[in-house]
């Protein structure tokens, strides 16, 4: 894992991977809940088992939703980082431009001064 991503597209890619995990978890929750209901076991113990399986399946769907929330948070973060980096780049570019102009002006000024004293 790099210490600093070159751009924020890598953060968006991570968010995408987290969402894919969330989708898989959701699909697995549905399949497991259905299998628990279809298991050919009927008794008081089986009813308790099914209730527990339902809870686990519900928790899975909730966890999948939270993963989606985490992915959304990462996307928002990536967008903010992108905006901050863009602003910094703008400022840096502007500063460099101003600096070059200043150097030119100082050069011109020094040249003119030297001309005046005949050097």
């Amino acid at each position, binding site marked *: *894992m790099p210490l600093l*991503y070159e751009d924020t597209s890598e953060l968006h890619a991570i968010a995408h991977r987290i969402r894919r995990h969330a989708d*898989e978890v959701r699909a697995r929750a549905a399949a*497991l809940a259905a*299998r628990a209901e279809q298991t050919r076991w009927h008794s008081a113990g089986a009813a308790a088992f099914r209730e*527990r399986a339902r809870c686990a399946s519900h*928790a899975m769907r909730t966890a999948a939703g939270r993963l989606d929330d*985490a992915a959304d948070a990462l996307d*928002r973060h990536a967008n903010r*980082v992108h905006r901050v980096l863009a602003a910094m780049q703008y400022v840096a570019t502007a500063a460099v431009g101003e600096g070059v102009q200043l150097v030119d002006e100082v050069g011109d000024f020094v040249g003119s001064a030297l001309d005046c004293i005949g050097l």
Partner: protein
Amino acid sequence: MGGYEPQPVSVRGGADGIEAHYDDMVEAARLFGRAATDTGGASLALHGYLLDPGIYSSGLFDPVGAADFEAELAAALDGPGGLSWVAAEWGLLDVQLRSAAAAYLAADRLDTAAHDMLDGFLRLPAAAVQSGETLARTGSVAGALNRLLTADPELLDEAIGAFGGVRGTVAGGVSALLWDGHAVVRDGGVDQDPEAAAPPRCLADVMAGLALRSYARHGEIDVRVLTRADGSRAVIVDIPGTKSWDPLPNGDVTSLATNVRAVAGQPTAYEHGVLTAMQRAGVTPADDVMLVGHSEGGMVAVRTAIDATASGRFHISHVVTAGSPIGAVAARVPARVQVLALENSGDLVPHADGATNPDRTNITTVAIRRDHGTVSANHDIEESYLPGAADVDASGDASVRAFLGSAQRFFDARDVQTSRYVITRANW
């Protein structure tokens, strides 16, 4: 039935019983175990993003946003009901299901053995006393033995178990010696007897129909086509029990060869004859069919239900047996076939396979109490199972009510046509 006094019945299995299919439970447990592993793996992989230095360093430019993401992801993974907990929970459900399946399997094995052994030995002292009293009173050894066996029929389970059960070497060898040939079915015409022309209204009526056929010719069965008010049909097939104990090769399908083969769960010419008769009577896979059998006929009924369901040839929805040893094969009856097994507590014959009927939601075993003190009367359809069926009708047991409720379409027909067929064994 004048002077009929309902007797209480004991019920095992049925809708109020336990259903546990070990193989299916273990298969489901495997799936849950895989889900636990996969979900745990996903959780581990996602934990990597909580420690990602790239995401950490991006926090320099948006510390609040980075912290927000880390908090959301941590909650999804390790919060209450998070992915790590879910993985552990499915792992526990895997273990729970496997344990339950193993426990049921062990309990079923133990239950069958213990049920027979305990019942056999607990009833032995009282049976011995009654037998001794009979001997003292009558001086008849045969009478005393009769009394001993009817007072403690579970002894037979123990004796058969000692010889390796009905699927053991002895039974296998005997059944191989008794050649069964193949079935020949003759039409016997429509039965005009008023009893055969009356649609059944309860289980006792169904049993009366079987009793009527039991007093007919050797090998005679009937197919009762019931027509309901809405024009829909249901079918009852009556399959009587043993009428000949001739051990030598013969053409009577109700003789010993069928008993020996059926008790070991093997197909018989009698069964093939029943299927042919149903076809000739115009029974189709759209008709709900109830097979009713006494003694050997009950074993044939169970085996017919297993085979007809597997082939899809007929839709057997219900089986009623009376005094039939079906314990060794009943577990193979498909779950969609409801079985009601009537066993008189003093009847030896249901113990002839040395196996107790399995405790399943689709197998309701009802022990009736109609003790007449002799082996033959306790097994007799008229003396024991006809009043026993009325006892079942009067029972409020949940499993019994569920069975009778599911069989309602056999009890509300507008009219009935009863066709007779005579099955004989050819090439024996």
